[in-house]
């Protein structure tokens, strides 16, 4: 780097930092400059421009924001059941998915949190992390081969004459929920492990030594203390499930109209950028609402304890 320039920047920085903290760690803030600039230009601005486009008059085929500031797109969305019903559909699918993921994920998270053998612990962590990081479309391929009308389950049952026609396991809401659970389960497990690990084992021992049964110990000691992790995991799963386009498109086969499918349909098939942007903002708003619900419930379950 240019020495002279560095020196000047350093002096300015040092002066301002000193005045704030009286510390010589002057150039520390420089480290965060690239990331901050990158996020302002390519994250904050784009999200704002999406908001702006959603407030433009709908003109098919036009992408750029014009700054009309009209509510046409939102009015249209909330006047047609085809569109506003998809909010409820998206929400209930995502709530169902987060509840199932919590029920399925808790035992595994508990097992991993209590596994002290380092090799076994690492092995289980690798399984969970690898299944989280593997491309969702690849995992959906497996789900589709499993659940399809000619898939492994239906094909086998048909050949054994256990059923006469294929069970409707895919291209419907069931398929979407199954796909969402598969995709989001690792996130649930990971957000639970840390919380369960932090529960002091002596609390459990105390409850047991005072005569509580295993179930009572779990119900009145472990479960309440796990609540923060369960709620945080459910929020994360809700956010991921409500916004996944690939699960709804592939497992729902374009028959389950959730918000991401509407967005894609409006933009890619109709060129209705303004309306698509409005639905994207509504999806964003659904997730923000979920965060508020989460905070309210979290404050309630904490009940004064933190």
């Amino acid at each position, binding site marked *: 780097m240019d020495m002279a320039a560095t020196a000047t920047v350093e002096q300015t920085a040092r002066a301002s930092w000193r005045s704030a903290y009286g510390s010589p760690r002057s150039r520390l803030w420089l480290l965060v400059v690239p990331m901050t600039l990158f996020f302002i230009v390519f994250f904050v601005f784009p999200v704002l421009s999406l908001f702006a486009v959603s407030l433009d008059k709908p003109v098919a085929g036009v992408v750029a924001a014009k700054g009309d500031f009209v509510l046409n797109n939102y009015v249209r969305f909330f006047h047609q059941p085809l569109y506003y019903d998809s909010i409820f559909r998206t929400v209930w699918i995502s709530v169902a998915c987060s509840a199932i993921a919590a029920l399925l994920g808790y035992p595994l998270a508990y097992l991993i949190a209590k596994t002290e053998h380092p090799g076994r612990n690492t092995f289980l962590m690798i399984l969970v992390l690898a299944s989280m990081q593997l491309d969702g479309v690849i995992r959906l391929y497996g789900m589709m081969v499993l659940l399809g009308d000619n898939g492994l389950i239906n094909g086998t049952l048909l050949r054994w004459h256990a059923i006469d026609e294929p069970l409707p396991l895919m291209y419907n809401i069931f398929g979407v929920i199954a796909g969402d659970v598969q995709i989001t389960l690792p996130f649930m497990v990971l957000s639970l492990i840390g919380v369960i*690990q932090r529960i002091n084992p002596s609390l459990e021992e105390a409850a047991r030594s005072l005569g509580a049964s295993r179930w009572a110990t779990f119900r009145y000691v472990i479960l309440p203390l796990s609540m923060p992790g369960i709620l945080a995991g459910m929020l994360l799963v809700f956010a991921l499930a409500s916004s996944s386009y690939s699960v709804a498109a592939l497992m729902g086969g374009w028959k389950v109209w959730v918000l991401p499918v509407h967005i894609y349909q409006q933009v890619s098939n109709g060129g209705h950028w303004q309306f698509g942007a409005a639905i994207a903002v509504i999806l964003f708003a659904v997730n923000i609402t979920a965060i508020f619900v989460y905070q309210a419930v979290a404050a309630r379950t904490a009940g004064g304890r933190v």
Partner: protein
Amino acid sequence: MNDSARLPWPIKLGSALALIVLLLPVVIVVLAGLNAGDYLTFPPQGLSLRWVIAFLQSETFFGAYLFSLGLAAITMAISTAIGTMASIYLTRSPSAGAKVMRGLFLSPIVLPGIVLGLALYVFYVSTDIGLARTFGGLLIGHVLVTCPFVIATVSASLVGFDLSLEEAARSLGAGPLQAFRLVTLKIISPAVGAGSIFAFIISFGQFDLSLYLGTTNLTGLPYAMYISLRYKFEPTAAAAGIFAIVLVIVSMVLSSRLINLRKLVARA
């Protein structure tokens, strides 16, 4: 010490169920890719490498695989560099602003990929900066979604880092950069390595962004598989999946040697 003996049976049963849900689809993809027949049945008709060979010769899938690898490598380099620098600031700065920034930098994890892709595309077109449907535009999206993982991993290793080590190096005559390079960077380098592996894998498996930022020439493996899955179940796609699965498992084993995976989830 025998851990499993202490655990009640509902926990074991539930864990088994969860592992089946997590792993069964992956096993199915592997079987479908190695299956001898045209489509997968239960039980399989026998093993064969015909689909793996078809994948290696397929322009669509193999080309997409290589494209994803290249894009992931560049994404990884950028995210790791700016993410590590930002993490150092975020963990050392006492200011409230640092907390806000951390929240901002982690937020792409929960922002729907389809919304982010759409937002970036609208932004590129509105500003006319020539990034719409280009490699650079796609790359920017990938850096955005991978940075949170680098920051989470690297800052986990920096929390509890003993600053006096760096100060000791300084008092022994090292310059600030030298002290950083020889002491701090050395201590956090396993976490930086793991963070960069995460960035690589997240980028490699990124699908939703490609819907608006990719084109026919800018097609990664997830998008190629998605197109194929909409119409038919090509075993070639499953064979491509096997290569992705191997890549993910190798990366996770590597990162488990670099960092304590438990530490990642320890501070939520």
